[in-house]
């Protein structure tokens, strides 16, 4: 039952979105305890666009409810592939009072075709230094290197979650013909901004770090730049479109990123 007036107002606002499409109350969720400061709402046990769509819808709905003054004591929500962790302050609220409020949000239906961002990711696939695993991926998938690149460029990627390190996107939607497990021997050192694939996903490394994904290209963009007021470039729910660039273009954009002069807004379209 929705009893909080601010919450009702937030939901009424969301119903006013013309392209509203609801997930109705037949969605079964599990509430998992994470101690006395968080709990996780699990929508399923698989990686799929439907399940992640529900996660993102609830993440957004809780955000709107908080902005409207409801759900006091909710600190933040953490969307992952198939669940949403809700972090709360036990000094100002409790699990027992939050769970029914969130059940109410889900039961009223969640708008799933939310406004989102389309983000262009320029990527250079041509330099063997940038794409040390391209030939092996081609061999293991029975393709030519050009076909691997074409399949990556055509994949409709969506950021399902960020994690492992600040700003690292787990983006599902990789063309099924490119699906491979992670490398059996992870690399000790993966350069910053390397573009990798594994399972049905692609990622971009925000920092130089260890990593086990197959590296097929590199973007001149930094996923995390502490000099920016908003250091993270990507957010959960973003749709990614890779755009092929040559080494010369890579070097030019990389210089602008390094100097802090790149106009990042040209890469992002709000929909």
């Amino acid at each position, binding site marked *: 039952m929705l009893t909080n007036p601010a919450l009702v107002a937030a939901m009424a606002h969301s119903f006013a979105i013309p392209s509203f499409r609801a997930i109705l109350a037949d969605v079964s969720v599990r509430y*998992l*305890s*994470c*101690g*006395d*400061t*968080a*709990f*996780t709402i*699990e929508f399923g*046990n*698989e*990686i799929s666009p439907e399940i992640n769509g529900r996660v993102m819808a609830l*993440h957004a709905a809780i955000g709107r409810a908080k902005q409207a003054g409801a759900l006091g004591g909710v*600190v*933040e*929500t*953490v*969307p*992952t*592939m*198939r*669940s*949403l*962790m809700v*972090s709360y302050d*036990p*000094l100002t609220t*409790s*699990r*027992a009072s939050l769970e029914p409020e969130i059940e109410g949000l889900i039961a009223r239906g969640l708008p799933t075709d939310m406004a989102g961002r389309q983000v262009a990711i320029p990527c250079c696939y041509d330099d063997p230094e940038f794409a040390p695993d391209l030939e092996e991926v081609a061999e293991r998938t029975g393709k030519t290197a050009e076909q691997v690149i074409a399949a990556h460029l055509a994949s409709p990627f969506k950021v399902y*979650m*960020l*994690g*492992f*390190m*600040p*700003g*690292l996107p*787990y983006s599902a939607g990789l063309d099924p013909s490119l699906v491979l497990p992670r490398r059996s021997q992870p690399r000790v050192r993966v350069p910053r901004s390397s573009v990798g694939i594994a399972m049905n996903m692609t990622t971009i490394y925000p*920092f130089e770090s260890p990593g086990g994904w197959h590296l097929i290209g590199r973007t001149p963009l930094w996923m*995390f730049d*502490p000099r920016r007021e908003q*250091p*993270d470039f990507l*957010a*959960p729910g973003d749709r990614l479109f890779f755009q092929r660039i040559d080494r010369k273009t890579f070097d030019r954009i990389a210089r602008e990123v390094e100097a802090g002069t790149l106009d990042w807004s040209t890469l992002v379209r709000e929909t």
Partner: protein
Amino acid sequence: MSAALKVVRAGLFDTVQDLGRIGFMALGMPTAGAMDRIALSLANALCGNAVGMAGLEIGVMGPDLLVEADSLRIALVGPLSPGLIDGPDAPAKPIESDRTHLLKRGQILRMGMVEGSSTAYLAVAGGFALPPFMGSLSTYARAGIGGFQGRKLAAGDSLPLAGDQAPSGDEKKLGHAFDYGSGPIRIVWGPQDDYFSEAGRNTFVTSEYRVSKEADRMGIRFEGPTIEHAKGADIISDGIGPGAIQVPGAGLPIVLLADRQTVGGYSKIATVASADLPRLGGLLPGQTVRFTPVSVEQAEALRRDQEARLQRAIADFKVARPPGGIDLARLYEENLIDGVVY
């Protein structure tokens, strides 16, 4: 020259921490923050700061800090044996922890070892003049962000201070030692307790676990009896709350603390009650603990009780008599009781 605390000798792992970088987990940003929020809060309150201000977290062994300000009030909280050095070649005079001290230019504060615990805290009245990053001064060294240049302190660093003069007022000390509790660490089952066999869950709450050498701000890997899985160690990655206890395939528990990643793919048998996180934050390799289950409601109640006790501890601060000095307040108080005026 602007006021600073200069590191003349580095400690082992000393970082600037507040109560964490809150609100960015969805972007993959760990919260970081003090391992023992009680001790940091007490240190801040002793020297008149808001409890959540950034202080210096001392990891195992503290630095020597040269005062480059006309006067500076500091508070130390934790099992330290600090000393004060008046100048070059002067001996270190022992000073007490769990209280404030008024320092003057040229003195060197020797923090020394943290005894029987891994963490202690230094707060300075008025705080450090450091820029917040994503709303917090907490150092997250793995990504090189926050605090002082995103890293632990090194010799030669100058920690900028907000003020050159200590505010006037009495020195203060704790009225009573804060009771962190001493029984088993309280845990709440979940989020993936159903990934473990009943025997595995029993093993976890009936055995003694020893802190291994792999213990830092990210987490503590324990040694002890292995915990049996029922559905395997791997899950589709989900969110990791503070105190989550993940059990990888080898069956040994890892408690995840301040610098933990935001998401992870190992099943988590249980989560430490937030009231017991400060105790875990001070554990040293070789120390042993046991775990005992409580409900979510009980864990919430433990946390509220702990917060009430923290507020009482702050209300119970006493005026600290300077060494060899006269405690005027106490003198007047006794005179009134005696009814005798000298």
